[in-house]
Each structure stands twice: as C-alpha cells, then as structure tokens.
C-alpha cells in the first residue's frame, strides 16, 4: 500500500482557526461568532485582526444561531463556532427553522466533537451530531481528518452558498494531507488502493484506518482506504466504484453507530449494491472522562477494532 508520512501532529480545531484567519483576509463578507469559547475554537487571530467582524454571543447558543441566520440577510457569511454538543443538540430547532428550512448561508463550526474531547466527559462528548445534522434537508455535513484538511475545508465552505455543518476536534493527530490541497465538498478521497476490502473512514478515524491497513498488509490483506470528509452529500459514485471492486466494506468513525457515516454507506449499498459491511462506531453508549487514546480503545473505535472488523467482514465475504 501507499506509504503515509507526517512531520507533526496538530489539532483539527487549529486548522479551523487558521482557515478562518485566511478567510478574514480574503473575504470581507466572512464574519465570526462565538459562544464564550474563543480560545478553544482558535478564533483569536481572526478576532485580533478583524474585530469589527466578530460578535461575541456569550453562553447563549440559541441566540447565536438566530443571529447568524439574520446576518446572512444583506450578504454576510457567518461562521458560528462552539463545541459540537452546543452547536447541534442544544440548538437543533434553531438550526432547523432559522437556518436549514430558511436556506440560510450559515456555517456551523463545531469543535471538540466526539469522544476524543477527553476528560470533560460525556456531557460534552457528542457522538450524535453527524446524525442530527445529516437529517436536516439541505444541510452539508463535513468532518475533515487533519489540520491541513480542516483548514482547506474552512476555506472551501465560504465559497459554497448554503448551510454547512463543519465538524472538528480537540486532540492532536497526524497532519498528513497536503498543505496545498484543494478541498472539494462532496468528493471522497481515495487514499490508498486495495483489492480485498474498502475502509471508508471520516475525521480522526482516517489516520487510524491507515494504521489498520498497514497491519492488514502484513497479514496479506489489501485494504483500499477512502476518506469520506463529506458525509452529506455522500459521494455515491466513489463508494459504489470501490465496493464493486473489493466487495467488502468497513466503516470507521468517531460517532454513534446510529446516524453516522456507516449508516449512510449501508443505506446506499442496501439499495444499490448489497455487500457485507462492518461498522466501527460507538454503539448506543455515552462516553466518559479519560485520555483520548484510552477512550478510543475502551469504546471500540481504535486501530485494532478496524483490523478486527476487516478480518470479520472478509469471513462473511468468503462465505457468500
């Protein structure tokens, strides 16, 4: 398989902060909002250089979403940032009515998504957000895998008209995608070709899938790795193309099984190309406090879980 290298580990939230700062320089219509989490969202640089285009909302997320919807009337492009839990579940009806149903050009920027938020525990570790957001008609759902990709995605969504949910996180993870990449919304990225199984991964689990594929290679299993950074709209063509070749699927995500990437892939394959599939995701459980790596292991969404899922799905493939 293709070799992947990285020079440093970085957090995806910093990729968002860097992208937002670039947008500050490039696009005068971009405005930012935050609900008392400037430092956590890495918005400091934008605020320092573009203070007139930033609105602090305080700990009042519902109002922030409504204000963001209003800011679009007259041509602004609001980037509203807070933790993923408070950016989705807490304000679902505000997003539903004032943003999605109203077709507003609001970018919901959600940090600290998933279980790798770590020590703060389950109150803050939302793993339902992708499901909540993808159910909203017209909502684009993006979950980039590393710093560079998050920065590129942040830049790209400013050029797209319509509501977007951009999901990123807190832990430092290998920054392996190119710094100069062009981010194409809705375009799956084939990271490494393989013939026995396709691993569809999103967010932090993309690097874990690369690690898993390296282990599988040593076992003589050739895994194709596809980075699904856009969960909605799903790149059905890329999914079907790969699966018609490998005929076995594993999905990997830092999210609940219900409503996640695996569920979108299974829905597509069930209708178009029924194929054995295993899903690496959290199954109907709340998280808990702990170190990100320990949590990924305990909740069954780590590298070895992807390896096991591949071994398992290949048995089902052979038995067909």
């Amino acid at each position, binding site marked *: 398989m293709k070799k992947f290298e990285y020079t440093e580990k970085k957090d995806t939230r910093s990729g968002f902060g860097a992208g937002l700062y670039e947008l500050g320089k490039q696009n005068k219509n971009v405005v930012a909002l935050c609900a008392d989490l400037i430092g956590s969202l890495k918005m400091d640089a934008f605020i320092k250089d573009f203070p*007139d285009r930033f609105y602090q909302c305080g700990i009042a997320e519902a109002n922030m979403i409504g204000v963001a919807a209003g800011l679009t009337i*007259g*041509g602004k492009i609001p980037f509203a940032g807070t933790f993923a839990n408070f950016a989705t579940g807490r304000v679902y009806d*505000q997003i539903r009515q004032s943003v999605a149903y109203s077709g507003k050009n609001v970018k919901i920027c959600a940090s600290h998504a998933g279980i790798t938020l770590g020590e703060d525990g389950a109150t803050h570790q939302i793993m339902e957000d992708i499901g909540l957001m993808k159910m909203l008609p017209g909502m684009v759902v993006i979950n980039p895998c590393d710093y560079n990709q998050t920065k590129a995605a942040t830049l790209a969504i400013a050029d797209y008209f319509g509501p977007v949910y951009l999901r990123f996180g807190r832990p430092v993870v290998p920054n392996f995608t190119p710094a100069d990449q062009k981010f194409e919304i809705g375009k799956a990225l084939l990271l490494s070709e393989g013939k026995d199984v396709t691993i569809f991964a999103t967010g932090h689990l993309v690097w874990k899938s690369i690690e898993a594929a390296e282990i599988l290679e040593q076992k003589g299993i050739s895994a194709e790795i596809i980075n699904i950074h856009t969960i909605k709209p799903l790149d059905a063509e890329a999914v079907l193309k790969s699966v018609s070749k490998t005929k076995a699927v594993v999905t990997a995500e830092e999210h609940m099984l219900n409503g996640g990437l695996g569920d979108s892939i299974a829905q597509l394959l069930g209708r178009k190309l029924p194929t054995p599939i295993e899903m690496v995701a959290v199954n109907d459980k709340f998280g808990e406090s702990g170190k990100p790596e320990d949590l990924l292991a305990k909740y069954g969404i780590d590298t070895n879980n992807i390896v096991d899922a591949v071994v398992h799905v290949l048995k089902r493939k052979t038995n067909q």
Partner: protein
Amino acid sequence: MADIQKLKKIASQVRRDIVRMVHAQNSGHPGGSLGCTDFLTALYFEILEHESKNFDMDGKNQDLFFLSNGHLSALWYSVLARSGYFEVKELSSFRKLNSRLQGHPTTKEGLPGIRVASGSLGQGLSVACGAALTKKMNADPKIVYSLHGDGELQEGQIWEAAMFAAHHKIDNIISTVDYNGKQIDGPVDVVMSLGNLKSKWESFGWLVLEMNGNDIEDVVKTLKHAKSLTGKQKPIVILMKTEMGMGVDFMMGTHKWHGSAPNDEQLEKALAQLEETLGDY
C-alpha cells in the same frame, strides 16, 4: 401627516381577508391576527421604507420586518398582498397543498416579503438582531422591525437576544410585543406570568415605549417616535396593548379564537362587522 382614515379602511379589508382565509381552510389563527391588524397595516402602509415590487432577500437600503410569532401568518400574508408583494388572489391558497402561503411563513416556497421561516417561537428577535448588525456593517441606515407575542416571551431565547442587542448596542431595531395577555392555554398571567414587562425590558438595557395597538393613530405616532429614537446606542421595544380578536365582537375578550376557525354562520356574522373597502380576494 398620516391618512388615518385610509389606514383604517385597509385594516378593515385585512380583517376580512383574515377571517375568510382561516374559514376557507378551516384552519389558522384569527385571534392574534385580528389583534395586530392595525399595527401591521400602519407599519406597512405608513412607516416601512420598502420595495414591495422587486423583492430581494438582502433588502439593502430598505427597512426589514420579521414576524417572530409566525402563527399570525394570515395577517402578514394579507398585508403583504395588499401592499403589492404578490397578487391578492393568491390569498385563496392559504394553508392549501402546493401553496406558497404555508401555515407558518417560510422562505422555501419563495413568497416575496418573507426573509426567514417562523412558527417555532422565540427565534425572530435573534434573526432581527443579526440582520440589524449586517445593516450596520454595510453602512445601511435603514431599520429592522420585529413583532413578537407576549406568550412568546416565555421562550428563553428572547432574553438571550435581548441581552445580545443591548450588549452590542444594536440601535437600529424596533421590536414590538403584542401584549394581549392571552395565549393558547389561557391568560398569560395564569399560564406563566411575565411579571413587570416594562421593567424587565428596561433592566435588559432596552428603551421601552408603550402604545395602544388598536388605535391606528397612536400606532403611527409611536412608531414614528420610536424611529426618532434609533441611533442612540440602545435597542427599542414597544409594548403594544391589543385585544385578541379585535374587530369581531364574538372573538374578543377570550383566548378561544387563538387557533380556531369560524364556521359558515360565524363567518357571516364576522364579515357583517367588517366593511369591504378594497374588494375581497
């Protein structure tokens, strides 16, 4: 000087539209709509600087209005049609299948005059604040208006927005509260008291005015006064006393007509009290 007689004639026709629309589909919210008819008529026909013919979403260099209590849709649709946003005959499609006149207002069907969906209560003040900020950033001197129910003030988001507007000195917004004292389950004081509403808003940092929402002359005068108070670092709210069901005797003095439609006999009785001034749709 405002032509109060002319506004009264328009209001009478709007009230006819409301009861006819709600009756035709046996569905809708006549009570609050009739109560706020004088206000919305005065706003659209005397106060707002707007372009009804070439509606565009951004509304640059125009005043904007947001109906936060979206269940007053029949009222808003009638006023929009009567002021030229779309043809009056389209009012007959209210709440019907394939209509742009949805049960609660929406942008999705592209009905001119509407800039955000409303219906789920408490969201419109936040949206109005955002639109007002964009006007400031765009150096657009026009004003953003919004209307809210008094029951709607029970939603926490209203007070989040109230804090936000004062904190950011949003002084190009004039919000009005339909203070009719009634909501679906009964009197507001019985369902969930609002306490001293005037001092609540004042303590949140707003300039508070009061008016009789069923006296068109007072509405015009107060809205003009409110406009003269914009640009002074403070958001403005008008507590507007109205009578739910105003103009139709049997719909007044009760919350029962909040969300009920009149039957054929009641429609006739209602229409007999409302002069047809501009021609029914």
